[in-house]
């Protein structure tokens, strides 16, 4: 590895790891510098594959995956101690976590311009990867996989198409976990998910099927359009679905887990003073159409109130 990138001491560990790991920056387009953390395999770093991990958002850091999910270290509640993860993905693979795009985590751009899009992210990820293979050339001989989760469901296949054209890389395949593959399919299927998990009742389901589906008698997987239906009755019913999934305090990232911090105070849409509040959070763009549509309607409804 590049000696200047090697992490020689990581605070919080009782014992430093037996495998090598590296942290540094990779050059993307313009003045963008993407931060990476490479963890060598705990088994056979010379022979094991190289796995790139990208996180989604857009705007979320892959270090969350490294330190809370599939990396070798798990941060403890005190915010300082680290414990080893017995099921780390670097047990039998070299894993490269990339914070992308610029502006995410420790990644930055000298010009401070963080305006970007899907095509640009794919190109920057590819440029950063090329820079990685320049700095760590022996990984060119390793089998290479691209993985990621959430909105990286877009980043991963787009980067794969670029890597496929590069014969210098021994590209083998991709793995995407809980990824976004299709915004319309994700938006439509969540309504069935909610109904079949008992989150919405029969009355609302009836309203949905009557206003969003072509015929009441043909409710099958693809016959209903919940996602971008122009029928106002469908949009109204969908606002209620969106409200249940997003606003009432369910943990949308794990239905059967508690919501850390409990039910959010804005969950009912009204403050103690009777005012309505516009809230903002980070999500894949699954509900954008309905979510912002709903907020616009709320603004109209309460125009005599002072909005915060």
């Amino acid at each position, binding site marked *: 590895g590049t000696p200047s990138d090697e*992490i020689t001491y*990581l*605070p919080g560990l009782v014992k430093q790891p037996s495998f090598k790991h590296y*942290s540094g920056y990779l050059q993307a387009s313009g003045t963008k510098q993407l*931060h990476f*953390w490479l963890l060598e395999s705990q088994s056979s770093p010379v022979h094991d*594959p190289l*796995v790139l991990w990208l996180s989604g*958002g*857009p*705007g*979320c*850091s892959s270090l*969350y995956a490294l*330190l*809370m*999910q599939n990396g070798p270290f798990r941060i*403890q509640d005190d*915010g300082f101690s680290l414990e080893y*993860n017995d*099921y780390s993905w670097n*047990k039998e*693979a070299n894993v490269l976590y990339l914070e992308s*795009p610029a*502006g995410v985590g*420790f990644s*930055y751009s000298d010009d401070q311009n*963080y*305006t970007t*899009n*899907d095509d640009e992210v794919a190109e920057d990820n590819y440029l950063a990867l090329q820079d990685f293979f320049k700095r760590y050339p022996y990984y060119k001989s390793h*089998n290479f996989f691209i993985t990621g989760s*959430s909105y990286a469901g877009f980043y991963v296949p787009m980067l*794969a*198409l670029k890597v*496929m054209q590069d014969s210098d890389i021994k590209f*083998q*395949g*991709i*793995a995407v*976990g*809980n990824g*976004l*593959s*299709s*915004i319309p*399919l*994700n938006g439509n*299927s969540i309504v069935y*998910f*909610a109904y079949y998990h008992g989150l919405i009742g029969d009355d609302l389901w009836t309203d949905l099927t009557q206003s969003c589906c072509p015929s009441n008698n043909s409710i099958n997987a693809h016959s209903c359009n919940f996602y971008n239906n122009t029928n106002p009755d469908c949009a109204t019913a969908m606002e209620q679905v969106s409200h249940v*999934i997003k606003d009432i*305090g369910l*943990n949308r*990232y*794990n*239905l059967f887990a508690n919501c*850390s*911090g409990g039910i959010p105070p804005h969950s009912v849409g009204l403050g103690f003073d009777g005012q309505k509040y516009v809230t903002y959070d980070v999500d894949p*763009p699954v509900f954008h159409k309905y979510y912002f549509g709903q907020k616009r309607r709320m603004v109209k409804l309460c125009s005599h109130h002072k909005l915060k």
Partner: protein
Amino acid sequence: AQIPCINTSAITTYLNNPYVRQSLHIPENITSWEVCSSAVLQKYTFQYDTMKSQYDQIIMAFKYRVLLYNGDTDMACNFLGNQWFVESLGLQEQIQRRAWLFNDGKDQIAGFVKEYQNFAFLTVKGAGHMVPMDKPNAAFTMINNFLKKRPF
């Protein structure tokens, strides 16, 4: 920017510790680490609705392997949407949908998998959006089998 219902205070505290930043070779002028950047999200242009065309091209190369997996209790990117997406690709089914296993001393059902040529769609039972955090043993078994080209 915070992720709703997810406590990120420990990791935020850790990565903003000056000693940790020094260990990771982070320049001093880089601003505080946060789990998600609202600046990036707000300035982001979403150009695509679907990745179908991209997957079609990967599949048509006939030499790359694909694994799509879903914790089945996630509502941000739910399993059913990805199941529909995979069905929309029109792949030839190779192995019927079946349970796949992991071992926690005894074999356990980790979820369900349907396999096509060079392509698998797999669920992880009881896991949410962050599969390796929710079901670490099953997730490790899954990725290891995929990387080593072993059956699930």
